[in-house]
């Protein structure tokens, strides 16, 4: 049985541990402060040579703080050893001795925990700052291409007419005289037939000057009733200038059925233009002349830019001329094998290039076929 010791003898040993703690604690005391205080960073200076980063010093401080904690509070610490000896303290003093030890333990462990928390926080802040992205840098986005504005407008026109019950048709671009002129009731002496206006191949075939040629083929093939549009490339001998090209794109529509009237023509063109240019669009029909329709009408629509009050686009008239139309000429129906006493029909045509120029504010349509990517890349 070992001899009992009293508190008088025990206390110096407690005090010695505290003294040892206080000596080393001196280096860590800054870290009890909030990490954003300047003293906190200054306190790190003793944790590494000048020139190494604050992050390295903070990591080193954290390591040393943990070692310090182990040294003072771990299983092999003097405090731990002392705790084992408490049973040798005389029973009467044992309570006091226990309290002193507990107090010392808290006195050491609490600040060290704060220090560790603060150092971890400090390190975390630096790391976050280092890893932060500039989220405004460009995304990894492969450059996409762009469809030609003529394609975009043509497809939009097609979509509208398919939804109105029309089929899309296409035909040859080099045609016989019959399909390009005769079947369209264009007389032999009509100026459009002259080589001034129409391209001819050395074999005497015509480059189609309108896609109405497709209508004749379609009527012959499908018969009446019939609803179709024919978008496509057409050719006229115009010298290129800001408003002309020797090649352009056109869409022609045809509706043949029993009881078709000009009211249906007006309704169809008006509906198309409303869908194309907005619900507020007003359409106007004016009498005109085309060999393949009778009666014939040109249609204008209210200027989408100024709404009719007059501007540069509509040349101050409030109206934009867009295309030609009319009731299919009986000679055309008969020529395509449709009886004009039983069926009637309307036809209309408009330039896709002109629509493109209007919709996108293009002032020189030669750009359409120059294929300058600075132009093409402005479209969808």
């Amino acid at each position, binding site marked *: 049985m070992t001899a009992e010791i009293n508190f008088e003898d025990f206390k110096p040993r407690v005090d010695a541990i505290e003294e040892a703690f206080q000596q080393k604690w001196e280096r860590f005391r800054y870290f009890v402060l909030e990490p954003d205080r300047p003293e906190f960073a200054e306190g790190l200076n003793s944790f590494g040579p000048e020139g190494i980063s604050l992050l390295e010093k903070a990591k080193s401080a954290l390591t040393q703080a943990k070692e310090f904690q182990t040294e003072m509070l771990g299983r092999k610490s003097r405090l731990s050893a002392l705790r084992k000896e408490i049973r040798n303290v005389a029973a009467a003093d044992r309570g006091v001795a226990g309290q002193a030890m507990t107090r010392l333990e808290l006195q050491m462990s609490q600040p060290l925990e704060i220090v560790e928390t603060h150092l971890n926080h400090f390190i975390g802040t630096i790391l976050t700052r280092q890893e932060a992205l500039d989220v405004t840098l460009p995304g990894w986005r492969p450059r*996409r291409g762009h469809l*030609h504005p003529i394609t975009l407008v043509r497809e939009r026109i097609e979509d509208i*007419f398919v939804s109105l019950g029309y089929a899309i048709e296409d035909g040859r671009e*080099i045609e016989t005289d019959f399909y390009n002129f005769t079947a369209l009731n264009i007389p032999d002496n009509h100026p459009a037939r002259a080589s001034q206006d129409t391209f001819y191949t050395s074999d005497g075939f015509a480059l189609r000057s309108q896609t109405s040629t497709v209508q004749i083929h379609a009527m012959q093939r499908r018969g009446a009733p019939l*609803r179709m549009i024919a978008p496509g490339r057409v050719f006229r001998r115009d010298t290129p200038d800001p408003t002309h090209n020797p090649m352009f794109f056109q869409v022609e529509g045809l509706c043949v*059925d029993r009881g078709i*009237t000009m009211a249906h023509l007006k309704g169809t063109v008006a509906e198309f233009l409303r869908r194309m240019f907005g619900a507020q669009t007003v359409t106007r029909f004016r*009498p005109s*002349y085309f060999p393949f329709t009778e009666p014939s009408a040109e249609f204008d629509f209210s200027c989408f830019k100024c709404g009719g009050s007059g501007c540069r686009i509509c040349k101050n008239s409030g109206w934009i001329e867009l295309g030609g139309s009319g009731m299919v000429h009986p000679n055309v129906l008969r020529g395509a094998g449709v009886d004009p006493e039983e069926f009637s029909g309307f036809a209309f045509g408009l330039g896709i290039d002109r629509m493109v120029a209007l919709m996108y504010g293009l002032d020189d349509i030669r750009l359409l*076929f120059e294929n300058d990517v600075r132009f093409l890349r402005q479209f969808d």
Partner: protein
Amino acid sequence: MLISYNWLRELTGTVLTPLELRERLTMVGLAIDAIDELEGDSILDVEVPSNRPDCLSHIGIAREVSVIEKSKLQIPTSKVTKTEGRAADHAQVEIHAPDLCPRYAARIVRGVKIAPSPDWLVKRLAEIGQRAINNVADITNYVLHELGQPLHAFDLARLTDHQIVVRRARAGEKLQTLDDVERKLDPDVLVIADATRPVALAGIMGGLESEISQTTTDVLVESAYFNPDSVRGTARKLGMDTEASRRFERGADCANVLQAQTRCVELICEIAGGVATDDAIDIYPQPLPARSVEFRPARVESLTSLRVEPGEMQRILAALGFVETPSASPTVREGSQAAGASTFVVPSWRSDVGLEEDLIEEIARHAGFDKIDSELPPSNMAGEYQPVEIKRRDLRRALRSLGFDEAINFSFIDNAHDEQFALLPGLTTVSESAAERLVTLQNPILDEATRMRPTLLPGLLQAVRHNLNYGTRDISLFELGRVFATFKQGELPVEREALALVATGGALTEGRVQAEREFDFFQLKGALEAAVDAMGLGPLTFSSAAIAHLRPGQSAAIFLDDETPLGSIGRLSESLAQPYKFRQPVYLAEIDLSSLLESRGRPLQYAPLPRYPAVVRDVTLLVGRDVTFAELKQAIAAAEIADYAGVVLVGVYEGSNIPEAKRSVTFRVEYRAPERTLRDEEVEERQRKLIDLLLRKFAAELH
């Protein structure tokens, strides 16, 4: 056509303002381009449709105005007060070409005094853009603009033997016209001649020698009707476009010949003095027949949906000059009797009217197109896209997402490209000359562009050049369009749709200047394959081939399903890159899209998912450079190794540590058994078998 508002008011008594007239005339089919406000008058610029020559005059426009306003047209009265003698006593007229000149009338005014026109006449002509010359010439011009009938005044003294002969020119004849140009004539040209020589181009322009001058005292006033085709043909051939030719070539009013002449002679006597002959020499051997049109009023509504009162229909037609006649011998069409059919005689000035539909149009435009309802036709049909149109849309969108911009070029190209490019397979027969093989334009508009393009490639290369010139270095373009070739002389040419791609520079990333990587053969090949795949078509196969416009060793023929030749792909040859001054590689592909679109798409069919995992093994072989990936792949697939499930390329290496004539190819082979997981040693055994086979077949080594 410039129309004076004051003049119009004299003829109609219109109460409409010029602005109101603009609106009203536009809505009956006579669009007014502009109104020029002059001091005391307004000038309307009327856009006259090509079928309405009658509206190339104030009286014609006035007639439309009188219908609009329900007012009475005041036709200028013509009465020559002082006459003496017969025209035939002073001149002779013969028509030798009645087919080209159905009617010719000549009247003489003697003792005129040629002087400047009075102010009112000068002013009136000036307002409608006409320059005053002298009183007689100005009067003919005035009547032309008033009544629409072109007239010409000859100095009678200058006509040899006072003779007028209307005939075809003789080969070698010449005529100095009023514009001081010497015209070479030929028998296609109708001339007015005197006893010895041509003195005017019929219906187009007079001659300088017989023109009215200060010394003229006796005038022969010509009023005639010339064949429109003849006048048009001559005017076009000689590059002339005159006030007279413009009217004759669209069709003048044959019945108005004398009336206009009388008006002209009246004014000459009044303004220039002189005495007119009592009559005119009027040669009109075969009067043009009057046309009549049968009309069923009910058809107005059935064609236009307009309901017009019968009385209003009558009024419009009558005011326009149509005369209703009791159908004496009614050749009435079936069912038309019930509709109250009647027959209208067409006025001589309306050469455009010949059908019932024409009368319907007359009524509809004066009743007002704006009165016609607007409604969609009854919906009884389903819209449809052609299946190929849907595929084209897929194709375009796939190429767009692959970074290609869509180009559109003219369909005609320079014949300098004739021999430069390999054309689509089967487009032409190669044995003939370019001129026979390709489609040539008779009348190109751009001098150099004489061929209908047999390939899209020259256009795309030109576009690359254009963009390089403007500082764009990274370019990828595609185009869809027809290509053309002669099938057989005299038959319609072949038209096929082609797809072409061109790429140079690098594949860009949006917002960064540096290209992700430079374009090469495999990038273009991959883009083409991806685009074809997006249509649900293909697969394409490629085999090394010599292609005219492509660099040897970097060019391939493209096939569909290993058999149908479709086109070519590769790097542009050095000899073609030079003229374009390309200093960076340019890659091109062109395929026959028509054939591809006609091919059957891949059927979409679900396959059950494998129940057991696959095992993969890599193998690297050192093979000769002439052994292709396709051959190796084909051999592996054909090796019939048990549980073989597929092979993919890992990589190809050539270079420093590889013998020069060799390349190292690494594959990953996949094995899978349908009913169990393969054991390692089973896989090893299969892989060894495969490798042995490849080593033997290709004289390869393991690497």
